[in-house]
């Protein structure tokens, strides 16, 4: 039994799942589900399809290269069965997948670093532009503390313009 990788999305294909397509040049394509197969039939390039692992690795969304991936690399030479080796491998598999999860989490964290401050800045700018959508201009003038609790911001609102717009 062998756990294969889907050609399109790179997810694991467990026994009982998926489909194998053999092209006449003897190239084999394995798919984990019909979604991937259908995309393949549409001749989509997985490198351009956003939800595939290949795309994500290519575009820096996920950990691209790491030593933890080495264990899963396909080895075509069969190894002589050795009980100790099997035992060690099973232990290693567990440890390595834990490490990989940690590293991926770290990668995500690094990727998202600075996102919060950027988000803040963007929100502020949006507020500045569109505060009239949120609060009536008269309310702002009356109680400036009502509107923006944390950030102090100068919001220029012209009351005459608003009333003119409403009349017309």
């Amino acid at each position, binding site marked *: 039994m062998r756990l294969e990788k889907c050609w399109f999305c790179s997810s694991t294909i467990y026994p009982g799942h998926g*489909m194998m397509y053999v092209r*006449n040049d003897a190239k084999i394509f394995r798919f984990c589900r019909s979604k991937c197969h259908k995309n393949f039939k549409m001749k989509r390039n997985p490198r351009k399809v956003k939800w595939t692992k290949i795309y994500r690795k290519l575009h820096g969304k996920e950990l691209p290269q790491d030593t933890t991936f080495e264990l899963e690399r396909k080895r075509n030479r069969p190894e002589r069965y050795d009980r100790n080796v099997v035992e060690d491998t099973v232990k290693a598999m567990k440890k390595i997948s834990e490490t990989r999860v940690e590293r991926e989490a770290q990668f995500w964290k690094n990727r998202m670093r600075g996102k919060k401050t950027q988000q803040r800045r963007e929100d502020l700018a949006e507020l500045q532009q569109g505060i009239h959508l949120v609060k009536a201009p008269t309310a702002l003038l009356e109680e400036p503390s009502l509107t923006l609790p944390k950030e102090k911001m100068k919001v220029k609102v012209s009351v005459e313009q608003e009333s003119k717009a409403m009349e017309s």
Partner: protein
Amino acid sequence: TIRPQTYSNVADNSGARESMRIRVPGASNRQYASIGDMIVAVVREAVPNMPPKGSEVVRAVIARTRKGLNRDNGMAIRFDDNAAVAIDREGNPKGTRVFGPVARESRECHFAKTVSSAPEVLRGIRRNRMMLR
């Protein structure tokens, strides 16, 4: 599934190119033939100047189908085309080479044996035979 009147490519160098299935021998009204079944077919298109002529009746073993197979381990296999290999009445292949991948389910014993010992293997793009496990 190969039904009557189904055209399939001939995947060997016996001289036929395309064949059309007529019957499945052994059952009176058997509709469907799949990978590994022997069929009786008529040669529809042949390589010029070679033994099988158009409209010659020939036996063949189905090597590939688009419908494919379902394996016991749950994996479903589909091929690119429908293809058959021409054999004679005993089950020995008529040609010397088989083109393209072949499923292990081509059950004819003679067929499998001769194919495994086929003389030439085209490496690279097209492989003579690939037994899919």
